[in-house]
């Protein structure tokens, strides 16, 4: 697929996944409402809770990530070559220059975060900096800066709200089941309420998992999109392909990373399984398989 098709196909799939997610949540709200007889007030409260917790993390995403990983800022004079690369990529995309950070670890990786290009931060590990040639660095940095340009932090922030929303909904429902009676207007309706009760319990158990799977599917699509957007900027897919190949060979994970921040890195910085994973295990990956990414890049 050529690069423009890659980009539009990934954008289109993002919207599709979001639409499905919203339908899923609406169904959930409906079922739970029917089962308990409380209707939509449920949904409202859950949404507010989820919203408050997630908006903070979205707004301060750059500071939070930098603090948890322990990255340090660098000046132009510390590493002019790296600085120039970031500067030139920003010129190529017509964006303001992001802040540049380094993370001291041998594991080759990079991440970018920030709620929009005006508040962007890009970070590379010392391992990556040493291991990569100039065109490979450019490929990696272009990918990372594309995440900010494509407003992925914002998108994944919204998705995080929705996932939290689902978890809270399911939780509230189960709590009600356990502790309380059912109030509300239509609790005396014949058999209907019973059916919804059963469906509701099923949903309550499965929905958080389903929501997380949707979130991960979205994360993978955005990774492909960032690959393609980065190549549109550098016009040199081989650079990123070579970099990914080198990263794939490296085994040691980064210690200061957890599940929440793993999504932002160019490749999952936590322990990797060797060899081919089963399709099912693959559903739980934040990043697409490296071999696929390399193959797609080389076909551009």
């Amino acid at each position, binding site marked *: 697929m050529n690069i423009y098709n890659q980009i539009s196909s990934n954008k289109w799939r993002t919207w599709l996944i979001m639409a499905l997610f919203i339908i899923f949540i609406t169904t959930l709200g409906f079922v739970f409402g029917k089962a308990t007889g409380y209707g939509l007030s449920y949904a409202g409260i859950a949404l507010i809770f989820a919203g408050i917790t997630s908006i903070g993390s979205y707004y301060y995403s750059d500071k939070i990530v930098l603090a948890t990983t322990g990255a340090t800022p660098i000046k132009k004079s510390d590493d002019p070559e790296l600085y120039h690369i970031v*500067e*030139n*990529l920003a*010129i*190529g995309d*017509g964006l303001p220059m992001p802040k540049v950070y380094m993370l001291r670890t041998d594991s080759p990786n990079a991440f970018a975060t920030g709620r929009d290009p005006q508040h962007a931060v890009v970070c590379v590990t010392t391992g990556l900096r040493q291991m990569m040639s100039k065109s490979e660095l450019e490929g990696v940095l272009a990918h990372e800066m594309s995440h900010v340009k494509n407003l992925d932090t914002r998108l994944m922030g919204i998705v995080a709200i929705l996932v939290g929303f689902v978890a809270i909904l399911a939780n509230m429902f189960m709590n009600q089941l356990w502790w309380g009676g059912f109030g509300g207007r239509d609790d005396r309706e014949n058999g209907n309420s019973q059916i919804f009760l059963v469906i509701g319990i099923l949903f309550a158990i499965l929905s958080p998992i389903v929501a997380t799977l949707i979130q991960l599917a979205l994360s993978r699509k955005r990774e492909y999109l960032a690959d393609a957007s980065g190549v549109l900027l550098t*016009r040199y897919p081989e650079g990123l392909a070579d970099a990914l190949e080198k990263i794939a060979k490296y085994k040691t994970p980064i210690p200061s990373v957890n599940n929440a921040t793993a999504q932002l890195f160019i490749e999952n910085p936590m322990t990797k399984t060797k060899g081919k994973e089963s399709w099912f295990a693959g559903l739980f990956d934040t990043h697409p398989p490296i071999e696929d990414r390399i193959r797609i890049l080389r076909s551009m």
Partner: protein
Amino acid sequence: MVMWIVIGIIVIVVLFIWSAYNGLITAKIRIGEAFSQIDVQLKRRSDLIPNLVETVKGYAKHEKTVLEEITKARTSLMSAQGAEEKAKANNQLGDTLKSLFAVAENYPQLKANENFLALQEELSDTENKIAYARQFYNSTVMDFNTKLQVFPTNVFGGMLNFHPAEFFAATEEEKKVVQVKF
């Protein structure tokens, strides 16, 4: 009844033309900005020249011709009027720079000089920046041309006085393989 339908259609068409016009004018202004960003980088290159000339003079006094040509090229760039003159002057400056760096190969002391190396790095980076600025300019042109030429905007784009913009193109001279003679 029919009258309402007609009015409805007219309203829709007007709204469409309004939003299409705004989209086009925004895209066009972005092209202008991207174009002047190229100038920002070209000026940066031009500003590095005096420093370069001074550094080289210290080691290669005999290479008067090359140094004179560079200074001349820069002066003619600063006095150039209009886009075409400026473009020609910039191309000429680029050529003289190439000669200068080729000549510098003969002077090992000059090549080892830190100042010279720093300037060389700056100029090389500026060339990269010029290239990226041109690439971005092309992407804004592509955006505008696409918006102008898709249906149905293409039907009345000309009426609103919008014409396709031009991509940045290298001259025939620039496309030739560079000969570096020592």
